């Protein structure tokens, strides 16, 4: 504290310069982080509009001499086999991710509500059990789950993926949503109950609309998680027509080891849906983190 008192009477100019120093440091740092983040993505885009021949040059063409959309046309053309595969993988990913998202909202909403509102025996234990799931790596569950899926006949079906993705989205989803329910005053529900609503009606009509941002955040999180998941899809699926995008792209690349423009175009198109979804809805996500995870 004494050091603060000593620095106080300094003249204005030197202090302003020091503050400016921090601010300039911050700006330089942000520029550095922007380059670190953006350059790889820019290079992906630039490579994706080169021909296969132009990509394999040394020194590289920093800017493509003859930009071409050939790679994108090839991937999106339902007439040739590459395009057929890519579109099918895309559709599979969309189906699996959407199913996971819908189911995880249906399961997480009542669970989070119960954790927030009720005091039943074992409540704390259950809540931490749900959180602890976050801690365990996919690999621990891989072998037994593979055997389990084989036993109940789900290997090589999208059902095995949906069931698995559901569990790994759930812990954070429940945690995020619980934060939202904690912040909704219980008096609102009590008022509705006095007016004759059942607990379930109060939940559907009062609590659900108020927690919509949390539900949206949960949905984004589940969707992105399922869209990007690789290890279970890689292990559970072996038939070509069922692969999801990450695994499908890996298979595509192991067959065409030098088609970097094609690979970059595929990576780009795989990223577009989740990036757009996230950018449109990111404020809900940040808000949910603020309310659920941080504020508690």
């Amino acid at each position, binding site marked *: 504290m004494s050091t603060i008192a000593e620095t106080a009477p300094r003249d204005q100019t030197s202090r302003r310069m020091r503050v400016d120093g921090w601010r300039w440091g911050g700006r330089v740092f942000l520029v550095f982080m922007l380059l670190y983040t953006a350059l790889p993505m820019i290079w992906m885009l630039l490579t994706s509009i080169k021909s296969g021949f132009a990509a394999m040059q040394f020194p590289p063409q920093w800017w493509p001499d003859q930009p071409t959309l050939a790679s994108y046309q090839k991937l999106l053309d339902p007439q040739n086999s590459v395009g057929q595969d890519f579109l099918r993988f895309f559709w599979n990913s969309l189906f699996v991710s959407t199913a996971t998202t819908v189911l995880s909202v249906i399961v997480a909403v009542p669970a989070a509500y119960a954790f927030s509102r009720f005091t039943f025996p074992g409540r704390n234990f259950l809540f931490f059990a749900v959180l602890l799931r976050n801690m365990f790596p996919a690999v621990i569950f891989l072998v037994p789950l593979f055997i389990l899926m084989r036993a109940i006949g789900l290997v090589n079906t999208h059902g095995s993926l949906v069931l698995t993705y559901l569990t790994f989205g759930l812990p954070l989803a429940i945690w995020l949503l619980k934060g939202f329910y904690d912040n909704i005053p219980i008096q609102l529900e009590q008022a509705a109950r006095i007016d004759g609503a059942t607990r379930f009606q109060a939940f559907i009509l009062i609590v659900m609309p108020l927690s919509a941002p949390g539900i949206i955040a949960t949905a984004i999180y589940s969707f992105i998680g399922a869209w990007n998941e*690789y290890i279970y899809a890689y292990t559970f699926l072996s038939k070509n027509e069922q692969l999801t995008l990450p695994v499908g792209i890996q298979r595509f690349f192991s067959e065409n080891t030098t088609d970097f423009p094609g690979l970059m175009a595929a990576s780009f198109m795989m990223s577009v849906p989740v990036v757009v979804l996230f950018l449109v809805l990111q404020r809900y996500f940040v808000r949910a983190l603020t309310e659920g995870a941080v504020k508690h």
Partner: protein
Amino acid sequence: MTIATGQKEARRELQPGSSRLLRNIWEHRADYAYVLPAIVVMLIVIAYPIYYTIELSFFNTPPGLQLRDKNFIGLDNYTAILTSEVFWKVTWNTLIWTLGSTFISFVLGFATALALHRDFIGRGVLRAILIIPWVISAVAASYIWKWIYHSDFGIIGAVLVELGLADRPPNFIDSVGTVLPSLIVVNIWREFPFAMIMMMAGLQTVPDQLLRAAKVDGANAWQRFWHVTFPHLRNVSTVTILLLAVANFNSFIIPWIMTGGGPSNASHIWITHIYELAFGRQRWGVASAYSVLLFLILMTLGYFYVRALGGNERKDGSA
């Protein structure tokens, strides 16, 4: 709420004989309905696999998952692991990978959050761009960076040659010495945005009055940060670091896609090694024993995680 309590009171009088816990559970039976779907799914996909992994770790298993032919061998799988050279190599790699990625991601993410805290033109756009790597799939990220690191046509190698810093493009991911740091750079690229979002959320909870009061008292920027902002963010920081550490400890995709653990195990971490043992060499028993060891380590980390969260709650309750 009052209606519900009234009903509970009545029910308590109806069943005087049963034990308190059972009665308590019975009274709250309707509440369990809300959690039941979550619990059932968790039991199927989590509890059963954990049990099965522990069981398998004590068995010698034939390849091809004909598990009826397994035979009990006690702790042999464990001793085999702990005496193997690969185990210590992989453990060392995992340590560097986890600590390096976690620490640098957190510092970069926190610093970015601080730099973005002050409002300026284009802040929203910048923030959105910085978050993108966290959103795109790790598979796409791995391929992008694999292409950037490419030993013949990679852009980093080309820049180094153009600037005269190297005679020929270096081998980033094909040489034992550079492979792990190169992969850590990719991992940080994908992970610092998470730390950034968490810390941005945390920064919003720091009361403005306190900062202004400190400023009036003559505290400089660093002192305001160290004595006001940072103590406020201790809980968020703990949770963020633990989540990052666990995610890094568990990461698989980046090393698996970019190098497959090579060259000569230099980029194998625990998870990729377990995967290769199980699905590559079909040594299910050994892989299960590895998983159990991993599980024990994670339980220890999990203990601190729960304590960090629990401490948070307790403080809230008293305030």
